[in-house]
Structure formats: structure tokens, C-alpha cells
């Protein structure tokens, strides 16, 4: 039983290498935006979503309107609706209280790595223990490293470009997850639209995160269409 929790914790190590610089950068950004230590910790512990946290802090630093900050943070995290729907069938065997706890740890990485593990039916892992092994490890390191970043301030040389580890983590999860041609279509369509939409968001001052949602929606429609065309 605890083997499965340990397996999740062990599998989180690769993700953590990408998240540690992210958490450090968030801590530094929170400090420069004027947030207190407690506010920074509560953000990491409570929101527990790096992209939304970083954008929220950037908007606070830019003195954006409160409603815009809140809406932006929520819009960026709306993608988790899709994670919730996707992983929900794996949690139907658990009671509502267990599910309420599991939901708290649902991040990009916990979702992607759990789904990949659940697909390996031969390993027959205990689903919630593997998931919690990932989630609790990532949560602890995320919150702790945020504080380290907050305390360290701007001591890390930007020239090393450690932030690049974040898209590398997403690539490492994305590439093995692609199993057929329609999924390739979905990924490519999404990537192209994401770049165009990111440009539009920056150029026209549209809400941050809107580009991600538009791109994902177009990618999904493209994938479904490709699937239906090839099935015909």
C-alpha cells in the first residue's frame, strides 16, 4: 500500500526539478510585488497553481484592478475543469470526503503523471495513494521553495535561464502522452493557435490565460475532427 505512495513521491522528483526554479521565481516576484511572507505562503499553499500565482503577483505589481486580477487567476485555472473531468472516473470508487481531499492536489503535473500511471494497468497501483504521493510531495516542495525564493530575493542569475525547465517538463509529459495521429493534430493546432493568441494577448492587452483556453479549445476541436475524419 505505502509502496504506491512512495512510487508517487519518487515519480515527482523529475517534476520537482522543473518546479523548484518556478517556485523560486514566484517567491522572488511575490517579494518584489510587496506581498508579506504569510500572504506568499498562503498563496502557494491555497492556490497551489504556479502559472496563476505568478500572473496574479505580476498583476498586483502592475497595480491592476482587483476584479481583473481575480478573473485572470480563475480563467488561467479553468483548464483544471478539464483535468477534473478527465481524472474523475478514476476516483468514483472513493467517498466524497476522500474526493474532496484528492481534488485539492489536482495540478498540471499531478494530473498528467497520475493519468499516465493509471493507463499502465499491469502495475495496478492504488490510485489515491500514488496520486497523493505525487501531490503531497509537490505541495510540500512547492510551498517550501516559494519561501526560499521569497527570502533569497533576486540572488539567482537570470543568465542561466532556469525558467526554461518549465516548458521542458511540459514537453516531457506531452510527448509520451501522444499515442495517435489525431492527438498529433490536436497538439499542433493548439501550439500554433497558442502562439498566435499569446501574441494577440500581449499586443491587444487581452486577459492573460485567455490564449491558453482558446488554444486548448481549438486543439480539442481539431483532434475530435481528425478522429472523426479518419474513422470514416
Amino acid at each position: 500500500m505505502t509502496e504506491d505512495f512512495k512510487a508517487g513521491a519518487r515519480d515527482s522528483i523529475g517534476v520537482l526539478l522543473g518546479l523548484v526554479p518556478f517556485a523560486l521565481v514566484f517567491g522572488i516576484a511575490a517579494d518584489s510585488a510587496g506581498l508579506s511572507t504569510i500572504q506568499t505562503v498562503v498563496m502557494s499553499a491555497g492556490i497551489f497553481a504556479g502559472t496563476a500565482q505568478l500572473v496574479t503577483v505580476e498583476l498586483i505589481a502592475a497595480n491592476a484592478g482587483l476584479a481583473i486580477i481575480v478573473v485572470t487567476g480563475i480563467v488561467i485555472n479553468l483548464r483544471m475543469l478539464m483535468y477534473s473531468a478527465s481524472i474523475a472516473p478514476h476516483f468514483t470508487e472513493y467517498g466524497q470526503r476522500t474526493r474532496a481531499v484528492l481534488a485539492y492536489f489536482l495540478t498540471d503535473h499531478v494530473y498528467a503523471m497520475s493519468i499516465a500511471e493509471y493507463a499502465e494497468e499491469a502495475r495496478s497501483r492504488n490510485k489515491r495513494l500514488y496520486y497523493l504521493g505525487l501531490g503531497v510531495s509537490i505541495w510540500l516542495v512547492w510551498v517550501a521553495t516559494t519561501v526560499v525564493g521569497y527570502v533569497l530575493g533576486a540572488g539567482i542569475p537570470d543568465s542561466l535561464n532556469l525558467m526554461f525547465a518549465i516548458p521542458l517538463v511540459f514537453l516531457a509529459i506531452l510527448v509520451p502522452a501522444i499515442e495517435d495521429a489525431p492527438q498529433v493534430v490536436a497538439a499542433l493546432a493548439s501550439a500554433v493557435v497558442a502562439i498566435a493568441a499569446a501574441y494577440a494577448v500581449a499586443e491587444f492587452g487581452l486577459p492573460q490565460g485567455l490564449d491558453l483556453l482558446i488554444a486548448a479549445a481549438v486543439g480539442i476541436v481539431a483532434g475530435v475532427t481528425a478522429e472523426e475524419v479518419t474513422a470514416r
Partner: protein
Amino acid sequence: MSEYAVLEIWAVILVIAVATYLIRLSFIHLFGRINQVPPRVTLVLKFVPAAVLAALVAPQLVTPSPDVAEMVVDERLAAGIVAAAVAWWRGDVLVTILVGMVALWALQFGPALVF
């Protein structure tokens, strides 16, 4: 420094935290009342990871610009392609990160060392 009242910052943090939790809980909570996922929904869900992850990655490998020719000449894109090849070959997160970072550093700092 920002110009908000302390309570305003707290309100922003707490509202986003609660909303994010409810988003995470949504289908996980509701699913017990639906025994089977409709095939249409399953089909859509199949493409969620690929579409979302690609949307997260792509804008971080280039600087989004209307000038495509200029945009594709980017050390991050080259390093990302190398990393994607490694991910496809090995399927290992740690190795993918290490190779991707080394590729980026080689492209950014290498020419200065050679010439």
C-alpha cells in the same frame, strides 16, 4: 511596490484559492452521480492533455510574433525540439530537462566559447 490595502490582497488570494479549489473539485465531486462517461465526452477528454500541454509549451519556445521566419530562429525552439526528441526516445522527465537545459546553454553560451 503595489498600492493595495492589506485586506484587498488577502481577498484576491482567498477568492482565487477557493475558486481554484471548486474548479478542481467540480467533476470529481459530481461524477459519482454519473456512472458512464458519454462517448462524446470521452472523445473530447482524449485530446485535453495534448491540447493543453501544447498550449502551455509553444509560447515558451518562441517569442510570439507575426514574423514567422524570424520567430523560428530561436535557441529555445531548437533546445525544445532536442528535448522533445529525447522525451520521445526515453520518456523520462529528468533526462528531458537535463538534455534540454544543456542544449539551451550550448546554443546560448557555446558560440561565445568557440569564436
